[in-house]
């Protein structure tokens, strides 16, 4: 049997050759088609399919354009709100800093005056010192510190204590140095005018001098405690 097979290989019948040719043609066509598909162009696509393809591309294009519009609008809106919140944040920060100076939780610097009160006979008591501070406040002082240790704010109290004066709980020594930030000439005027700070001190037996400064730096901070009863009303 194998012998006849080998013989048939060398003397094939016509039918065998035709079958071989057909199968060879099929293999050839498959290879050609597969390689053609690999090239991935549209030359082999039918007109109808091309139209469909074009339509779907158009639809996708339109969809994507609307999406782009939507997203652009969203982005613009977000950018706007970011800018708005940034400016709101800036304003809030400025306001917080102003309030911090007012509340004495931050150091402050600016033009102002230094008032030195000499009290050799220990005649100046807390109320006299408070008077002096009130005069400075009337003159528009925005930040006040005494002896560089006691920041004077709304809650600060003045207290006589064994020949010493306590300001907001801090003991301060003589001579008293009051630093005040504000319009220096107005402050100096408020200190000097008849019946003003200097007059008030001298009637009580002390002496006071005032110097205008281009730059007064207050680093003393007030001890703040959170309000226990008061709450924001709005």
């Amino acid at each position, binding site marked *: 049997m194998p012998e006849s097979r080998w013989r048939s290989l060398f003397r094939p019948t016509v039918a065998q050759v035709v079958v071989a040719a057909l199968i060879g043609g099929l293999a050839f*066509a498959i290879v050609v088609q597969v390689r053609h598909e690999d090239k991935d162009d549209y030359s082999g696509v*039918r007109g109808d399919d091309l139209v469909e393809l074009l339509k779907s591309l158009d639809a996708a294009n339109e969809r994507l354009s609307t999406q782009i519009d939507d997203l652009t609008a969203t982005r613009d809106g977000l950018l706007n709100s970011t800018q708005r919140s940034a400016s709101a944040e800036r304003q809030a920060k400025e306001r917080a800093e102003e309030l911090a100076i007012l509340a004495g939780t931050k150091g402050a610097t600016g033009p102002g005056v230094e008032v030195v009160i000499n009290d050799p006979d220990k005649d100046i008591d807390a109320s006299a010192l408070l008077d002096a501070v009130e005069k400075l406040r009337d003159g528009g002082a925005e930040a006040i510190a005494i002896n560089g240790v006691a920041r004077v704010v709304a809650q600060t109290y003045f207290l006589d204590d064994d020949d010493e004066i306590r300001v907001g709980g801090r003991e301060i020594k003589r001579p008293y140095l009051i630093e005040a930030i504000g319009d220096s000439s107005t402050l100096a005027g408020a200190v000097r005018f008849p019946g003003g700070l200097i007059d008030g001190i001298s009637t009580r037996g002390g002496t006071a001098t005032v110097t205008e400064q281009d730059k007064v730096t207050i680093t003393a901070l007030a001890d703040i405690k959170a309000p226990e009863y008061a709450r924001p009303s709005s």
Partner: protein
Amino acid sequence: MIPVIGLAIGIVAGLLLEPTVPRDLQPYLPIAIVAALDAVIGALRALGERRFNDRVFVVSFISNVLIASFMVYLGDQLGVGSQLSTGVVVVLGIRIFANAAAIRRRIFHA
């Protein structure tokens, strides 16, 4: 044996020559290939059942290819080319599966 040599020659020729498919034949070649595959699988089944007839194979091969191509051509002319070629592929695919199942049953008895 000779058909296997033909297969090898066809593959090698396709790889070496790298011909481009003529534009007019491009829609028909894939369908023709599927139709020819149907004929080949049918022939393999007949071979397994020892009733292979080369004349039947040649005729079925050529007629399959021609009819499939003609149907696609007709579909293109009628404006239903893609649907009709899908239909032809489905029918031929079913036949290929059926023949393959018969071959499988004969070989594996399963």
